[in-house]
């Protein structure tokens, strides 16, 4: 069964500093990987995805993520965090086989300190 681990409950970072949100996954076969962001009282918004090709994926709002097959990781990064980046971030994975259901991590609360 596919699964995702987001080891940190909360990530605190000062505004302007680099932001990293960690994600590791477990699947049978090649993974499709996704990052979503959730602002308070809102649904999830898609940020970026890795399907194939370059390991470094660029997405919305200046975010990027690096796929590392040997470490089964897909960490989300932003070079310079903004206060408006404070939100809940979810990593998700599915395989290319079977149905399209996603397995989500528990989410990371990111707090950007002014």
């Amino acid at each position, binding site marked *: 069964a596919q699964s995702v681990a987001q080891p940190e409950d909360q990530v605190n970072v000062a505004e302007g500093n680099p932001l990293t949100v960690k994600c590791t996954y477990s699947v049978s076969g090649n993974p*499709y990987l*996704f990052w*979503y962001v959730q602002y308070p*009282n*809102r*649904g*999830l*918004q*898609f940020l970026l*995805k890795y*399907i194939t090709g370059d390991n470094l994926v660029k997405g919305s709002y200046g975010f990027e993520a690096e796929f590392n097959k040997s470490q089964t990781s897909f960490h989300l990064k932003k070079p310079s965090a903004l206060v408006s980046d404070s939100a809940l971030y*979810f990593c*998700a994975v*599915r395989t*290319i086989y079977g*149905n*399209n*259901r*996603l*397995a*989500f*991590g*528990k*989410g990371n609360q990111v707090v950007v300190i002014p």
Partner: protein
Amino acid sequence: GAGVSQSPSNKVTEKGKDVELRCDPISGHTALYWYRQSLGQGLEFLIYFQGNSAPDKSGLPSDRFSAERTGGSVSTLTIQRTQQEDSAVYLCASSLVGGLGSGGSYEQYFGPGTRLTVT
């Protein structure tokens, strides 16, 4: 264009009552998903509809939960005899679906959710 919409946005109900939650997916999206988000928990998959295929109900937590999708578009999630542990935000998502030959996998687009409170 219009995104995924859900109604109601908030629902307060008494324990033991039935509730219906509605989802309108993005036009043209053939796949529709229901998830549940409880406080401090991640997203829990409930059910998945794809076109005219039989739905994947493997995530439904009990037989009090059911869902249908009419005409390949609007979906309704029904919870019978609600319990306090059913209190959560229920999220609906839709996506395009491509086969293995399509060369890709399509992201899911989420609605704003329905916050269900069972008193």
